[in-house]
């Protein structure tokens, strides 16, 4: 078990490297740069800024610096190699290894990516955790009831709820919720910043909106997994043994049905804790969701890399946790 986890953790490194290479490649395919503006910077100014942030270096490999080093009579292969890797990509990686995720160009390089994420991630994470909790708390029971009372009014209701949850985009739900709560209940549409400190009621509404889609998904998944498991031989055996229906459902059906749910919950949780631009901007949540989007149009290279790698890391981590949890849920699955 421990060996398995260590191996999986080590695998995170090549996965993230691959993500980094692909993101970096795509990012630089887009025309423009962090200084693109209608009023163009004078060339000298742009060159100075590029030099300041190392954006004047080659993208991948710095062959010139390496040959310059050799021409200077540099024999130390390590130094020549370092000169060869004195490129934007590798300098970024070396920075990440040191815990420096680079400057965020949206603030003209004054604030670092890690400081932005350190400020914004906790809020997104809080909101995401509340959302996923609500989704599980409501979704799983809905699915169970739907499966146990197939074809009943309640089953249809779940289906309707679930379909609407998936079909209506979150910005519609969010805006409707705001307008409704504001005009009917007098809750102010725009929250004050201090309301997001700690874990306040302010999180409830955005969490419901954010969790609606996942809740619907979980409910449907639970239902179909329960129905599927219900047709298994061992359920018939359990019933034949004379077990009470409640125990059959809880101990034999739900436990086995949990596998597919746990499988999807991992990546969903990773997505929810990193925030959503729509829910966060509509509810004035000071989270990191917007960074995914604004960084791209601003060509905020280090922020694009930072958010992508961070998200990728959380997804990989969530999947690892999911895989590890399998062995608890289903003793037949042995990880070693």
């Amino acid at each position, binding site marked *: 078990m421990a060996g398995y986890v260590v191996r999986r953790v080590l695998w995170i490194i090549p996965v993230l490297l691959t993500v980094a290479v692909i993101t970096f490649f795509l990012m630089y395919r887009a025309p423009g740069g962090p200084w693109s503006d209608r009023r163009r910077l004078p060339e000298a100014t742009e060159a*100075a800024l590029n030099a300041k942030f190392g954006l004047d270096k080659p993208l991948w490999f710095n062959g010139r610096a390496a040959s310059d080093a050799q021409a200077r009579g540099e024999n130390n292969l390590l130094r020549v190699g370092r000169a060869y890797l004195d490129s934007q990509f590798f300098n970024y990686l070396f920075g990440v290894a040191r815990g420096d995720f680079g400057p965020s160009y949206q*603030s003209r390089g004054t604030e670092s990516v890690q400081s932005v994420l350190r400020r914004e991630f906790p809020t997104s994470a809080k909101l995401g955790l509340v959302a996923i909790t609500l989704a599980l708390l409501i979704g799983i029971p809905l699915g169970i009831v739907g499966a146990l009372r197939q074809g009943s009014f309640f089953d249809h209701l779940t289906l309707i709820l679930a379909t609407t949850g998936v079909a209506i985009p979150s910005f519609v739900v969010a805006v409707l919720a705001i307008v409704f709560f504001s005009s009917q209940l007098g809750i102010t549409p725009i929250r004050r910043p201090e309301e997001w400190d700690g874990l306040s009621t302010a999180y409830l509404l955005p969490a419901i909106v954010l969790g609606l889609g996942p809740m619907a998904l979980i409910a449907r998944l639970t239902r179909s997994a329960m129905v599927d498991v219900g047709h298994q031989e061992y359920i018939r055996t359990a019933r034949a043994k004379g077990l009470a229906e409640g125990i059959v459902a809880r101990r034999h059906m739900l436990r086995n049905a*949990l596998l597919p749910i746990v499988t999807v919950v991992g990546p969903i949780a990773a997505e929810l804790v990193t925030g959503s631009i729509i829910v966060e901007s509509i509810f004035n949540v000071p989270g990191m969701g917007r960074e995914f989007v604004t960084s791209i149009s601003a060509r905020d290279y280090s922020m694009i890399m930072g958010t992508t790698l961070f998200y990728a890391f959380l997804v990989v981590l969530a999947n690892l946790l999911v895989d590890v949890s399998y062995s608890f849920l289903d003793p037949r699955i042995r990880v070693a």
Partner: protein
Amino acid sequence: MTSLTIEKGPTMRRYLWIITLVLVLVMPLLAACGGDDSDDEPEEADATEQVDAATPTGNAQAATTPAPQTAAEPTAEPTEADDDTDTSSGDNVLRVHQRFYPSIIDPQQSGFTEDIAILLLNYEGLTRLDENLETVPAAAESWEYNADATQITFTLRDGLTYSDGSALVAERFRYAVERTCDPNVAGVYQSILFVVAGCAELAETDPTDQAAYDAAIAALGVQAPDDSTLVVELVQPAPYFHTVASLWVFFPAKQELIEEGGDTWWQQPELQIGNGPFQLERVEQDQLVTLHANESYWEGRPALDGFEYIYQPDSTVALEAYRAGQIDIYRPDPSQFDAVESDDTLSEELVSFPNAATNYLSFNLTVEPFDDPKVREAFAYAFDRETFCTEIRSGDCSPTLSLIPEGVPGAIESDAFAFDPDAATQALADSTYGGPDDLPEITLTYVNDDPAEQPRVEWIAGQFRDVLGVEVTLEGMESTAWVETLYDPATRPQMTTLGWIGDYPDPQNWLSTLFTCEGVESSSGYCNEEFDALTDQADSELDEATRMDLYAQAAELLISEQPVIFLNNSLSFFLVKPEVSGYATTAGDIEWPGQRASMLTITTDR
């Protein structure tokens, strides 16, 4: 990676672990639910009712500004910067909605209107603009050019202070110029001071070469010989420079505080000690910026106790917040105009006025067919500007046929190339192509970040098809990629819509900045020596009447050449609560009505 603690659960034998987890997570939430909702708000009802009683809102903008109410506020004055726990220290707080949060709030680095909206309250330059957009004394009580306008000497007011009471001396403004030109800072508006001797050279110095860098700073043509005198050397005659001295690049942020705070000094209000009518108090990223009245402002404190910018990117939510009385001033999105106008209350609260912004259709003059002036004329005649503004843009603009907007010095009247389908077809027939059939393929490139743009460009294409019989292909682009194409004639779109918002109200900022051979629009291939000669002469002319006359000639020349088709000037629309009074609008008020000239007088009696 940042902290993400993996909770080690107990031996999770059962699915029960999920329920346990859920309970742990939800407990505090449920506990919090028990507490009363902290907002006491249901005041949207009274906001809606009050309007009918107090209607003269719409014309409040035209009202002459009442004399600055000196500190006669009955509401005590708990605001002396020392209480930062209480957010709204006085009652008279104006709450203005903003869609975008500033990228940076730094006088020498900022360039966007939302950044500048904050800086203008917190700081003040040597001069400022009044309600007629004329340049009037501010921190400087007077200024004087030398005989050929290559040097300007500002004399500061006596006893100027920052909001913390410390003395504001000429050296502070010298530092502002130095910092603007500094290659380590390299702000968006650095080049606006390249007219200062040594500024461009300093900006181009390699900052890692300490000797060269020090020499360039020493050579910068700005001196503060004593505490109340600032002398600026100019590389060429620039009789408009006193207006440039009103810009944010001149705002005297304190050197020692900038150095103390490092790169992110601008996020800390306690380091943004200013000399403007207000003083920054809270800076909450993406959410809220608050300021309080500066009691030691030289002209007396503002009528307001405080000022709040409330950020909300979604227009529906923002309108709802306005209705609920949470914000006092909101700029509706064009998509909301119909809803606002059909609402009895909101339509009464709508304030509109023209902006110093001109939109035009720009051509690449280096490629076919728009290298042919007759083809440009044909397209200019074919554009129904009136219908475009009233119907396609829901009335958020007014048609124009010239560059400088009405209300800005240097604006001229013109009726050349107004909508005329017959003249359009005639012009196309007179072109080298002889008619629509032999024209090469024409593409109109537009920015598709905002989905509302699509129907507009479709209408434009339809217009050219109906009037000229020309098929125009539409090409949408993401904004940054699009901006990048504008830099070079080789990549510049054949035809694209563009706009210009004036930085300061002087014709130089329009004609010379945009259309000279070195100007912003030069990559379209437009370069006319006669035009350059006129603007060069005007830029350095000392006699105001002669200067304006030269600019008028240049503006007429521009119209006759039609390197771009002038389409319209933007109109600002704001919803303003009836309780807000004491302001006059100018064409420079981009973020809220009264922004330029009414900071001291605007007030709310909520």
